[in-house]
């Protein structure tokens, strides 16, 4: 008989309770360990800066960063710079996801197209995208467009290759089933390839969001007057290391936020599946 789910929860044995207690204790220990490491690092950094073991002009300090962050929040520059970087990253990410899905689908659908394009995709993926940035500035000028395209260029080729490879690895017998039931290649795509690739698409999105952020920051280094990438490059030029490190910390927070968002989408999908 099949596994039938019961509505009444079975009583939890004492051994199971002990196991759960030990599991939670372990989980708390790990979380405490992580915070302890962060506090030790920040404490050591602050002390080293105050005791002049390190030059706070070059290495900044946690208090200096908090002070600068407060200043950014007061004058509103935090929202301007973070907002523009967020907008450019989300725009690149959405475009990368749509472009790579459409391209991988076309490549799977048309075998000869994938054979023709394969070497070009491999070369474009291997090419260091920062090399394209000066070209993009000449073609598109300095502004959000250039930065969004830079963000796309970093992630899109790898994403197309990984999605296409994933589509090709779907069990051919599942497609055969569609053909035996009277379906076409288009049906195999809609009923088998795309639905079975949802976990792959989500994991590729996880990679894409990080790469889009990398591309956007590269773009802002070279072609922006606003954004966190601009603040980092400007701060380093005028030796305002508080500005540089604060921007880097905001970037870390943004990267973590994006990662968590996609992770929750993944959890939602798993729960639904």
């Amino acid at each position, binding site marked *: 008989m099949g596994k039938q789910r019961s509505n009444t929860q079975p009583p939890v044995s004492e051994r199971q309770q002990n196991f759960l207690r030990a599991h939670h204790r372990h989980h708390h220990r790990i979380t405490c360990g992580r915070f302890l490491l962060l506090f030790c690092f920040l404490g050591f950094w602050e002390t080293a800066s105050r005791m002049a073991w390190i030059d706070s002009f070059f290495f900044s300090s946690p208090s200096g960063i908090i002070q600068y962050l407060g200043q950014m929040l007061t004058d509103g520059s935090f929202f301007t710079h973070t907002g523009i970087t967020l907008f450019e990253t989300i725009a690149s990410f959405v475009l990368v996801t749509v472009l790579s899905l459409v391209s991988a689908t076309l490549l799977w659908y048309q075998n000869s197209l994938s054979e023709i394009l394969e070497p070009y995709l491999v070369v474009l993926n291997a090419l260091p995208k920062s090399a394209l940035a000066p070209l993009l500035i000449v073609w598109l000028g300095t502004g959000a467009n250039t930065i969004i395209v830079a963000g796309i260029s970093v992630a899109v080729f790898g994403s197309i290759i990984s999605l296409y490879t994933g589509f090709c690895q779907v069990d051919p017998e599942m497609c055969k*089933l*569609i053909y035996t039931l009277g379906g076409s290649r288009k049906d195999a795509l809609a009923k088998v390839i795309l639905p079975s690739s949802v976990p792959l698409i989500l994991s590729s999105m996880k990679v894409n969001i990080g790469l889009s952020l990398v591309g956007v920051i590269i773009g802002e280094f070279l072609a922006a007057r606003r954004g966190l990438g601009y603040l980092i490059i400007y701060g380093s030029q005028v030796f305002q290391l508080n500005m540089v490190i604060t921007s880097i910390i905001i970037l870390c927070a943004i990267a973590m936020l994006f990662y968590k968002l996609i992770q929750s989408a993944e959890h939602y999908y798993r729960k639904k599946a």
Partner: protein
Amino acid sequence: MQPILSLRDVSYSYHNLKGETPALSHINLQVSEGSFVAVVGPSGCGKSTLLSLISGLLPPEDGEILYRGLSSRDYCADSALKIGYMLQRDHLFEWRTVYQNLILGLELTHNLTKENTDYILKLLNDYGLYSFKDKKPSELSGGMRQRAALIRTMAIRPDLLLLDEPFSALDFQTRLFVSADIANIIRKTGKTALLITHDLSEAITLADRVIVLSKRPASVKREMSILYEISREDPLAIRSTAAYQEYFNQLWEVLTDGKTTV
């Protein structure tokens, strides 16, 4: 009885850059209406290729396949002559409920009418799966999954059933009863069925006629009609009859070319 499916001198080879691999060589066989025919042969002899050719997924390189007097190109295009194909694994899609899996064939052929969905609900009821229709396939046992795969195949109301080792993924005990169960269901519906298997015991227990294929490239080595005096409902009872032993020994000799050791 008049044959509804006949293969005349059918040959097929696979091609790649390393060369040509002949899979089937001059296959001649006939299947009469309402019969349950099993095809046995050594692993990799081209049994699955044979079903792909009959179902029209592959075109024959040589020879002719006639189904109800039509060539494979014509009968594949004829919507009244549907061929049901059960694969080695059930391939129930985990992203669909059991019911959504069963209506897949109707969706693909744009035949999702009330009459057809009612037919699926009736089959679910008949095969004891009605209460599982809204579950995910992973919540079904191996035997239930095979029954679900059979309903998915039957839902398109096939004229001919092709069974490509559909029980090979099951453990021995489950396989013994599920195979007999499914064969009985097919027999009751009066459908013509062609079962591919590498399990000689299964072939002799389930089929009315057994066709033995040679090693690759496969050709028909022997055909044998199977008849029992008792009902086929109980696979264990069949396997303990003298007739079963006799059929088994005869076919074993054909399969192994008279060699007693491997």
